[in-house]
């Protein structure tokens, strides 16, 4: 929980849940596990407010509670999870993935679950059906069964999972339920039988007062569908596996060719649900199985497939490895090694863009050869001595390169010591990860600043849009509409466009940096488990 991570979490909580939740959340992140009374005292908020904030955090899985440290009788303690809050940054990517895999229905299901945290299947299906019906033409509506089938598909491929059952606080001091990995209980992925029949309801265009009443009424909907108490949440680990597979496939496509990447995609698809999230390699698959599971459009003869597999195994990147000869050869995808290679390429590209291609040459040289003296660096990289020295010192000052002293005499006298330059991949990756967090926080702050600067203008444009919409609904004449539109002058319109452009750019930049964060995070976590 570094300072940068806490800053970023604070900004994300504020944007998505509001200031109060942010206050409670950052306080918990900074101080570790605390009980309710301490939180209330230290944040100077009322007990009710703190309780509500904690509820929000628990609902989204960002906070877990355990029985107190002093034994079963002491008050429960709450602890915030920094990782879970950082996932909020990746929500757009999850939703987009669901859309590409399962269409609009899947996209809306995932979106609803991400917004609400935990939901029952029935309420999800109903809400999604309503939303889909809203966007369909008059007279059509979405059937519940369609949505349910998409939901079941999502569960089958493990993108959704049941929330782990929570033991009551105060029971015999067992370990925090949220600490146990969610996949460890057996009914994680079993879809309950639902008696859910019907179609989505189209929402009428509401007046402001009616809207609130409708919303309140929906909440007191007391139909039961046989799945009370079974709540579902999004399985982030599975999405991360998917992203990791995508990264590996595109790397293979870049390095080799399209067909090799298709073969790797097939292998990864076949091992999707059989490989655990932290495994170093996928389960071995025989060449026969791979041949049978290749997509039908790629009808390559068997011996060509064997050649491709041999080439993949021989490639110095070591994405695919051969573990045996039975069944025509058993092949695995080396996940940890692939992640290490991707992280290495990411770090190299950062050095290249920031410091130039010659510094990148020196960096790669040091990555390969581990420890080198000043003179050797100059010789191997074929860079004149003065420039090489300059570049090495720049890299050293940015902590991307370290100096190792090997003394000839016990007194470390400079003239009698060897100074070797070296690069350690893991600490460098961690450092760059923190830089990424800081960058994202900077981008968010800039976006908030830009919107704040133009707040007056935004409010004005919103008011005018509301007036236009109401005028159109009540059937106004074109002159009235154009009169209202003219209330915004042309330069103001231009300013609004510029603002929109800026905000979009900052948003998309956040997503791009998040991709880097994903690669580096996966690499760091893969090394910690191995």
């Amino acid at each position, binding site marked *: 929980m570094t300072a940068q991570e806490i800053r970023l979490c604070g900004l994300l909580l504020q944007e998505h849940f509001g200031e109060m939740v942010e206050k409670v959340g950052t306080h918990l992140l900074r101080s570790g596990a605390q009980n309710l009374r301490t939180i209330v005292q230290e944040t100077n908020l009322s007990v009710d407010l703190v309780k509500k904030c904690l509820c929000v955090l628990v609902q989204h899985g960002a906070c877990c509670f355990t029985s107190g440290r002093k034994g079963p009788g002491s008050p429960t303690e709450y602890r915030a999870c920094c990782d879970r809050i950082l996932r909020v940054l990746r929500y757009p990517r999850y939703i987009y993935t669901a859309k590409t895999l399962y269409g609009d229905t899947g996209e809306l299901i995932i979106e609803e679950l991400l917004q609400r945290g935990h939901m029952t299947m029935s309420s999800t299906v109903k809400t999604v059906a309503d939303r889909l019906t809203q966007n369909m033409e008059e007279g059509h509506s979405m059937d519940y069964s369609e949505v349910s089938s998409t939901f079941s598909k999502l569960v089958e491929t493990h993108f959704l999972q049941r929330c782990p059952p929570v033991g009551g606080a105060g029971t015999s001091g067992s370990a925090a339920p949220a600490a146990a990995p969610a996949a460890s209980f057996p009914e994680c992925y079993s879809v309950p039988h639902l008696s859910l029949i019907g179609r989505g309801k189209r929402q009428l265009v509401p007046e402001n007062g009616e809207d609130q009443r409708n919303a309140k009424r929906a909440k007191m909907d007391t139909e039961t569908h046989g799945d009370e108490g079974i709540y579902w949440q999004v399985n982030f680990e599975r999405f991360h596996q998917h992203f990791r597979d995508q990264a590996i496939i595109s790397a293979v496509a870049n390095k080799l060719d399209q067909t090799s990447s298709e073969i790797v995609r097939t292998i990864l698809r076949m091992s999707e649900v059989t490989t655990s999230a932290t495994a170093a390699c996928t389960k071995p698959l025989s060449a026969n199985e791979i041949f049978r599971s290749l997509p039908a459009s790629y009808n390559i003869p068997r011996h060509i497939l064997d050649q491709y597999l041999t080439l993949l195994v021989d490639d110095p990147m070591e994405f695919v490895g051969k573990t045996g000869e039975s069944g025509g050869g058993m092949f695995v995808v080396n996940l940890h090694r692939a992640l290490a290679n991707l992280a290495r390429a990411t770090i190299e590209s950062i050095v290249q863009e920031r410091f130039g291609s010659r510094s990148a040459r020196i960096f790669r040289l040091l990555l390969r050869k581990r420890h080198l003296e000043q003179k050797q660096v100059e010789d191997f990289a074929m860079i004149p001595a003065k420039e090489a020295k300059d570049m090495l010192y720049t890299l050293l000052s940015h902590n991307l390169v370290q100096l190792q002293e090997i003394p000839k005499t016990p007194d470390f006298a400079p003239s009698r010591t060897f100074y070797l330059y070296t690069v350690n991949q893991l600490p460098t990756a961690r450092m760059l990860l923190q830089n990424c967090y800081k960058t994202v926080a900077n981008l968010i702050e800039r976006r908030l600043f830009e919107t704040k600067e133009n707040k007056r203008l935004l409010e004005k444009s919103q008011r005018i849009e509301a007036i236009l919409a109401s005028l159109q609904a009540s059937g106004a004449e074109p002159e009235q509409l154009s009169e209202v539109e003219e209330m915004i002058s042309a330069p103001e319109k231009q300013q609004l466009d510029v603002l929109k452009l800026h905000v979009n750019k900052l948003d998309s930049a956040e997503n791009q940096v998040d*991709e880097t964060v994903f690669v580096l995070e996966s690499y760091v976590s893969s090394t910690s488990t191995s």
Partner: protein
Amino acid sequence: MAEVKVKKETNLSEPAEIENRIKELCQQFPQGITDQVIQNDLPHLEPQQRAMALNKLLSLGQLDLLRNSSGLLYRLKDTQSASKMKGSDNQEKLVYQIIEDAGNKGIWSRDIRFKSNLPLTEINKILKNLESKKLIKAVKSVAASKKKVYMLYNLQPDRTVTGGAWYSDQDFESEFVEVLNQQCFKFLQSKAEAARDGKQSPMVQRNSSFATSHEVWKYICELGISKVDLSMDDIETILNTLIYDGKVEMTVIAAKEGTVGSVDGQMKLYRGVNAILQPTGLVKTPCGLCPVFHDCHEGGEISPSSCIYMSEWLDF
């Protein structure tokens, strides 16, 4: 009457005779004779006399004293070099010998002083003398430009001193290296592309995209962009820099001892590759390249809200 073979007994008590005998032995064994050999040949020669004769020959400059793993060796000095030193005195001969021993790496004046135990002023005088007689020369070392090493006049300086093909007059030729770099890369890249367009089976495609270091060397020689003759090792150092640039990868295969370009039964193959990753997301933002990244804090003088780099980037 039987012929009495009269063995001409050389009178071995004469010092001149001893010296001549030693010189004959040296001629018999051009690579040098040890003390043991002399003793075997002249078994009843006393060690004192032997030593005296050897010393005389050494001071006359007709014998060279060398040391190898088993002991001291005496070698006949060829008469041509012996005549060169006629005008010099002992000190100069000593200094000359030290410089000769250093071979083509040369020796620094301070090292000469250590080896000969002569004072600095003497050394300088002698060195100037020898240089004017055109017996030695000074060569500037590329590692430390102020240092001068001395070596015999007609010797070629070693690569470590002049830097080899990449240095011309103590300057590292970076443009030359760059040009070679790009040419090698283009050659390998075009070979890889040709292989890819061939649309044959993948194994054949990959094998034909490889080029041995020998092929690259021939290509560069034929291009004729280099004024200096480049050896295969030079080309390999250039190809290594391409590997460190991430543009090329190398494999080593076993090759038959006769095939062209193989060294010790191995051949190095090079092939152009593409990067496995596009430039990563972090560097697409100004923060990824910002020079004052660590000074940036909200509320400080450099902050995201007031960042000029961000403003420029947003207006781009």
